[in-house]
């Protein structure tokens, strides 16, 4: 794993943290005061900041830091998370998300947005709770670009400047510079007195190691004072009885010496005295010995041979011999030996063999834990899904060849085959379940859209979500975000009335947009409703007439008028706003839903709001279809499109115009479409009474009776993209492989219906025809 991969993980984690952050803030917005919620929110920001720091994403760090500081005030009950506070925090969460995205994908975030929020956050942290704005919020003017002075805080200072604490770099190289280049004669000489207290040991620090570290920054001599050592029977094994006097010549000076004891400064008495200008000849007179090089090898031995005390004797003798002239030698030895025995470190040393024994199972215990999920590359899952698809096809082929060979007597084969079929189906379902994900992330993204749009148009909106844990295929989720975003924008911008108007109508000035998901008969149904004004049918109708979509005489039902908004190029907004009207209409929404094999409907009640209902398949990998024959070709018609099947009788068929035929079904007429003719499988229309009619409902609402020659049966088929393997064919959605190994085309019902309109009515306007 390299840094780039970790960075990838970081951004994935950011996504999760941002989701956590937002859902936590929304809970708080709903009055949740559980400290754990606040903690989780804090941790999310904290975590992003931590990771961002490691990758040098300074903008992100700087903003996260300010945000975190304010959240900390909430966490420590210094700041009450009222609605105004949360409004700022939710906006900050959005900016944080944008900064994260900018760090990942490049690009920038408008500095004025960031700086405005930084100011708001800082004000909150300083105890300035904003006065609640009027019940009806005024439209937020786009923040005027701030002068340079208001630009985001200088980044470099942010992570370290709090509470005046400056982390002391561990790398001693940082201390280089002029001192380092000074001649050796001017290297300052320091006298150090180091008296550990018992707490030093109890926190896992170790005098020996501190002395070792000290020896690394310069040449030193050392004297161990053991006068305080009590007789053995009075000795507290965890007491601290020794202290050390060190004379060290180091370029790092006093600061360098102190930094060695950084971790221990609370738990020892430390005196550092610097001789202003130390010269070669000037020896320290207070120390009763000659400076002797401090031999590190004695310590190295300790490091390596914790378990072999006997060996030390030899080494110690060598060391002693080497520095025999100096009396200090004994001190070094006793220091090394006694700290090893008296200090708690010895216990750690004793524990080592156990550590070795445990090493074998360490890996398993390290990776184990409470988390019952694993992360898998999507490619791997897709590969598996593909293979299972092949398996399904293969199993179908096997069944077919068994049937073809008429092994009617061999019941074991048939039983085995049935079991295989069942298992295959189960494997398929299980594999599909791997790809299934809750819709929650998309829903969460929507709450941000609602906030932003509401802010922009000056409305007060509340988003209610339901069934966010409903699962659906990941591809569906990914492709759902865009149409949903557009619809939410519309709902807030066009659907809901301005707060004043709502109040005048006796409605809650705060509008409600509700987003819900549920499973219904093997599909996922997503509903988006608002409690706004509903569709203004008069306006829609007029607009449609203006745009030549219908004629003024066209008689349309309410439902049909409502569905006009899905027509290409239709927009009812009086003027184009920032929010909607970007040239993307509901027709685009509809097409993207259809591309997912879904349907979308609108129902609206004047004055009470509109509801969009989307029904989508749970997976894009398999499809329940009806296998039919048309002009000798095998086709698959998606089962979801079929309302009913019927055998047309001659008396029910009526001719209409030159080549059109209608079929009367329970006293209503429905155009009869010959699939074989539409797809150019044959040049002449087939005789309706020879075939079967499939009554289908197209996404545009109209019903058609599709003529096919025969129905073979219903089957679940694995969808193979035609575009990916061949090229797009009009009227055909995809392909599949049947049990006999042959490719069958999956009918694109909507395209066929649309084509039938054009063919049937020429330039007369499709919608008028649908009526």
């Amino acid at each position: 794993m390299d840094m780039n991969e970790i960075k990838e993980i970081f951004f994935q984690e950011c996504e999760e943290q941002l989701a956590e952050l937002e859902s936590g803030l929304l809970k708080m917005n709903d009055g949740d005061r559980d400290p754990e919620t606040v903690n989780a929110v804090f941790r999310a920001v904290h975590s992003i900041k931590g990771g961002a720091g490691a990758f040098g994403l300074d903008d992100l760090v700087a903003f996260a830091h300010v945000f975190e500081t304010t959240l900390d005030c909430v966490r420590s009950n210094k700041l009450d998370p009222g609605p105004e506070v949360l409004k700022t925090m939710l906006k900050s969460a959005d900016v944080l998300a944008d900064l994260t995205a900018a760090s990942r994908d490049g690009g920038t975030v408008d500095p004025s947005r960031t700086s405005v929020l930084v100011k708001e956050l800082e004000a909150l942290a300083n105890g300035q709770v904003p006065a609640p704005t009027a019940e009806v919020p005024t439209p937020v003017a786009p923040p005027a670009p701030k002068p340079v002075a208001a630009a985001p805080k200088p980044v470099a200072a942010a992570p370290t400047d709090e509470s005046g604490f400056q982390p002391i770099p561990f790398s001693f190289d940082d201390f280089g510079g002029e001192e380092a280049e000074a001649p050796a004669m001017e290297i300052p000489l320091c006298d150090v007195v180091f008296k550990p207290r018992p707490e030093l040991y109890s926190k896992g620090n170790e005098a020996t190691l501190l002395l070792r570290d000290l020896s690394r920054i310069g040449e030193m001599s050392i004297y161990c004072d053991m006068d305080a050592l009590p007789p053995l029977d009075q000795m507290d094994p965890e007491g601290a009885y020794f202290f050390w006097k060190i004379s060290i010549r180091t370029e790092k000076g006093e600061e360098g010496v102190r930094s060695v004891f950084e971790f221990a400064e609370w738990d020892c008495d430390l005196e550092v005295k610097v001789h202003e200008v130390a010269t070669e000849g000037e020896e320290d007179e207070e120390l009763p010995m000659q400076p002797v090089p401090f031999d590190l090898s004695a310590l190295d031995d300790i490091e390596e041979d914790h378990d072999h005390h006997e060996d030390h004797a030899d080494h110690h003798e060598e060391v002693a011999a080497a520095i025999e002239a100096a009396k200090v030698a004994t001190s070094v030895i006793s220091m090394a030996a006694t700290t090893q025995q008296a200090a708690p470190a010895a216990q750690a040393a004793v524990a080592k063999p156990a550590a070795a024994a445990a090493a074998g199972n360490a890996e398993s215990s390290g990776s184990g834990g409470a988390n019952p999920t694993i992360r898998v590359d999507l490619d791997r899952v897709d590969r598996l899904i593909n293979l299972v698809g092949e398996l399904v096809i293969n199993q179908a082929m096997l069944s077919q060849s068994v049937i073809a060979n008429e092994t009617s007597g061999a019941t074991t084969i048939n039983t085995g085959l049935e079991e295989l079929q069942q298992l295959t189906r189960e494997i398929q379902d299980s594999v599909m379940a791997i790809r299934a994900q809750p819709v929650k992330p998309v829903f969460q993204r929507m709450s941000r859209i609602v906030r932003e749009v509401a802010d922009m148009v000056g409305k007060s909106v509340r988003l209610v979500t339901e069934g966010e844990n409903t699962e659906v295929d990941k591809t569906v989720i990914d492709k759902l975000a865009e149409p949903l975003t557009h619809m939410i924008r519309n709902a807030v911008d066009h659907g809901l009335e301005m707060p004043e108007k709502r109040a005048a109508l006796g409605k809650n000035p705060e509008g409600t947009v509700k987003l819900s998901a549920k499973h219904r008969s093997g599909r996922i149904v997503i509903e988006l409703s608002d409690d706004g004004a509903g569709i203004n049918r008069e306006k829609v109708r007029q607009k449609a007439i203006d745009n030549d979509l219908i004629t003024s005489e066209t008689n349309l039902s309410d439902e049909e008028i409502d569905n006009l908004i899905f027509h290409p190029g239709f927009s009812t907004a009086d003027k184009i706003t920032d929010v909607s009207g970007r040239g993307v209409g509901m027709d685009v929404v509809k097409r993207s839903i259809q591309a997912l094999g879904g349907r979308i409907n609108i129902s609206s009640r004047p004055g009470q709001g509109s509801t969009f209902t989307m029904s989508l398949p749970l997976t894009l990998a398999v499809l329940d279809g009806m296998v039919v024959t048309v002009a000798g070709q095998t086709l698959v018609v998606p089962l979801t499109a079929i309302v009913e099947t019927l055998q047309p009788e001659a008396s029910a068929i009526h001719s209409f115009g030159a080549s059109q035929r209608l079929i009367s079904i329970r006293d209503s007429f429905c155009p009869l479409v010959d699939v074989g003719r539409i797809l150019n499988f044959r040049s002449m229309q087939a005789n309706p009474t020879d075939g079967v009619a499939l009554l289908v409902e197209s996404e545009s609402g109209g019903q058609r009776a599709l003529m096919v020659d025969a129905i073979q049966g219903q089957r679940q088929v694995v969808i193979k993209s035609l575009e990916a393997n061949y090229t797009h064919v009009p009227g055909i959605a995809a392909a599949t492989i049947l049990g006999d190994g042959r490719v069958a085309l999956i009918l694109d019902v909507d395209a066929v219906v649309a084509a039938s309109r054009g063919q049937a009515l020429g330039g007369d306007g499709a919608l008028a025809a649908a009526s």
Partner: protein
Amino acid sequence: MKKKVLTVDDSRTIRNMLLVTLNNAGFETIQAEDGIEGLEVLEDCNPDVIVTDINMPRLDGFGFIEGVRKNDRFRAIPILVLTTESDAEKKNRARQAGATGWIVKPFDPTKLIDAIERVTA
């Protein structure tokens, strides 16, 4: 024998960074995701040094350090606090809980290894 490091951090990013840094530096690395898991894992792994975050769900770094120090077997293990909490108050609290030293984020491999070297024999 390789030195063994137990890291306790709830951030997947930081866990991965620790893992890569420590493995590259020749340490054996055992990882836990929060204080509770840290204490569980500790029982079996006998690390030479522990590196822990402060802000974690379930059991935070302070609680974790106290838990380690309460256990006779582990009370002498050096514990380094790895955290962005660089202000003196939090550092002090970590010390009182029994931390040996600290490493201030942003995470930097050199700083981490240096600090580990400092507190381990």
